[in-house]
């Protein structure tokens, strides 16, 4: 039992924070929102160069063979930066999904195709969108090369040209969403049956986990921005952060955030398990992180006053990311219903000493 992250884990997160400060600066995000950005490929390649897409890939596929516990802080950093690249979907969902499918493929042709796709995804040579029934809209990288399309009991790997996807613009210009029109049956590499269903379920767990980690990151960013504004903005002769009302608002955010964090980290250690405990852990992480991000966003704009409504102030990038994450990989209702069923329905063993069971 050791709840500390290692030096290596923290260093890797630090490296991403440093890189993201540049790739996802306020200036660059504003350009994306204004439609004047053309650095998509540059950002993708920079992340690939740091090896970030390969964290969860097996060593045989050019990966680092690390675990979800190793990726969780990276996902948090992606949220902190409101990174305009679907790093978590590629590295945290598509790569382990491909690895699992490739490892379990029945025929060698399928296995080879999946292994090739895995290697390309882990290196960043391919850009993969993962469609899943839990998401009415799919987050895709700019100019995707492949789609992984999950259904009840199939997972299909398609080339981008085999897919018809309708753009669904959202408030968050840093995330490109699409509604997928049913892909043609005859195309692609298809895995069927129980193995596909289990892999698809695990993909949804990972998607929700990493959305939660991003929410924690964006909540922290929103809080940092609000705290710094509260220290600077003077009204009635003192910084507004000296007023007890503002202090207590921000302290409440910090409480919510600090108690969401360990929930998300703990969920990372069991995200791949198929049991009720893992489902509860992931839904708990999703709800706690979304609640922290929601409170952080509402508090940040309240602290900013009218200033928070201005396009020129960076705050809105992070608010919009918080809203977007709240709707991805199972929005509030999905996770709330799931956890209510587990806790109130008696499926989960409750009580002291069950936390890590």
């Amino acid at each position: 039992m050791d709840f500390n992250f290692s030096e290596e884990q923290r260093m890797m997160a630090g490296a991403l924070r440093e890189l993201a400060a540049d790739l996802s600066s306020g200036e660059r995000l504003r350009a994306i929102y204004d439609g004047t950005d053309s650095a998509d490929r540059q950002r993708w390649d920079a992340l690939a160069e740091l090896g970030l897409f390969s964290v969860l890939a097996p060593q045989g596929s050019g990966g680092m063979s690390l675990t979800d516990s190793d990726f969780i802080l990276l996902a948090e950093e992606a949220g902190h930066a409101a990174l305009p690249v679907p790093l978590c979907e590629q590295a945290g969902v598509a790569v382990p999904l491909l690895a699992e499918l490739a490892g379990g493929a029945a025929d060698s042709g399928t296995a080879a195709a999946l292994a090739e796709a895995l290697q390309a995804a882990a290196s960043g040579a391919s850009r993969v969108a993962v469609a899943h029934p839990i998401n009415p809209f799919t987050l895709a990288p700019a100019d995707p090369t492949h789609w992984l399309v999950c259904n009840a009991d199939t997972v299909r790997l398609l080339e981008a040209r085999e897919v018809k996807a309708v753009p669904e613009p959202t408030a968050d210009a840093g995330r490109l969403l699409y509604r997928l029109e049913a892909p043609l049956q005859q195309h692609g590499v298809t895995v069927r049956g129980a193995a596909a269903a289990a892999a698809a379920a695990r993909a949804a767990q990972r998607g929700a986990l990493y959305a939660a980690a991003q929410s924690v990151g964006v909540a922290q960013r929103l809080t940092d921005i609000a705290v710094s504004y509260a220290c600077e903005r003077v009204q009635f002769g003192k910084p507004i952060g000296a007023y007890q009302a503002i202090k207590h608002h921000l302290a409440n955010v910090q409480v919510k955030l600090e108690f969401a964090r360990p929930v998300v980290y703990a969920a990372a250690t069991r995200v791949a398990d198929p049991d009720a405990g893992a489902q509860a852990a992931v839904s708990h992480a999703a709800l706690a992180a979304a609640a922290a991000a929601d409170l952080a966003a509402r508090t940040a704009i309240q602290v900013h006053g009218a200033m928070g409504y201005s396009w020129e102030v960076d705050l809105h990038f992070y608010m919009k990311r918080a809203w977007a994450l709240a709707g991805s990989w199972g929005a509030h209702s999905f996770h709330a219903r799931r956890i209510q069923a587990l806790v109130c329905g008696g499926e989960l063993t409750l009580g002291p000493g069950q936390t890590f069971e």
Partner: protein
Amino acid sequence: MPLDLTFTPQQQALRAEVRAWMTAHVPRTPLATLEGEAGFAQHRQWERTLASGNWGMITWPREYGGRGANLIEWLIFEEEYYRANAPLRVNQNGIFLLGPTLMEFGTAQQKARFLPRMAAGEEIWAQAWSEPQAGSDLAGIRATAQREGDQYVLRGHKIWSSRAAFADWCFGIFRTDPASGRHNGLTFMLVPLRQPGVRVRGIRQIHGEPGFAEIFFEEARVPVANRLGEEGQGWHIAMATAGFERGLMLRSPARFQAAAQRLAHLWRSHATQADPALAAQVAQAWMDAEAYALNTYRTASRLMAGGTIGVEASLNKIFWSELDLQLHGTAMRLLGAHAALRAQAPDVVQDAGWLEGYIFSLAGPIYAGTNEIQRNVIAERLLGLPRG
């Protein structure tokens, strides 16, 4: 009979009249957003249409374009207005804020000059309160008005001015006594926006439209006749205006009742997949909208019986802003993955504008005096707690 919550035949007749007129006149297609240029023009046209039916501001005296209606009649009008899903009032700074201020503090000439054109929708007003260093702390303003003969010369920088990007006039307070500080030496001015020395720059809001503007006064000149009240009386008048803003009229209960109704529809279309706890939130939104309506009728009755509205305005401000946030927050949760879709997304939930409504609701606890300030007011002036 006291505590009589039934409408008189005259009140019922008014309701029928408003309903019929709105049915005939409210545009079938929703207007474009009034935060944009095209939408602003459409809303300006709608004000003229309203005025053509003599519905510009029914509580005003007939001589200023009103109908001399009382507050209960006004509430009935508003209910029918929102029931008909009629457009937002682009004119609200004029009819709800400056109008009542002019009636209380204006000269006969000022009333005759400004009120009828306000009611007719001919002149649209912006407010010019805040400055970069004076938001909640309005007494910190620095913009000046210097008397020169029968004119004032205005200098300074106003910000967060709603409607100003496309409006005709603005009202605000300026420092006429350069030696003064805080609440003293301020004067209330009425200023044409389209004149030399006034420069308006739209501020893009987070939804992408210029809902605010900055106004730069660079030696703009206004005649002394455009001063409301006396020199140095500006703070007093502005506080009265702010009271109107928080008071009875700015946020019509009908607005929230209409939104709660839409929310219940949204619930019904999502009920099978929704967190059952959201049903309680939907019911709460309905209850709060009704409570706000009931309290408004109660306040209207008290005012009509000779009472006044003072610190109760702060209670109202907190209640409606929190209700609006709760209501739209519930909609966001019901919408799930659809919540953040923009209006042009193919799968956006139509006709509701939930995202825009949510963004707007986030501002509720901020404008018209932050809720933190309102809570101080309630604690100190209603409950009698000691000052900090």
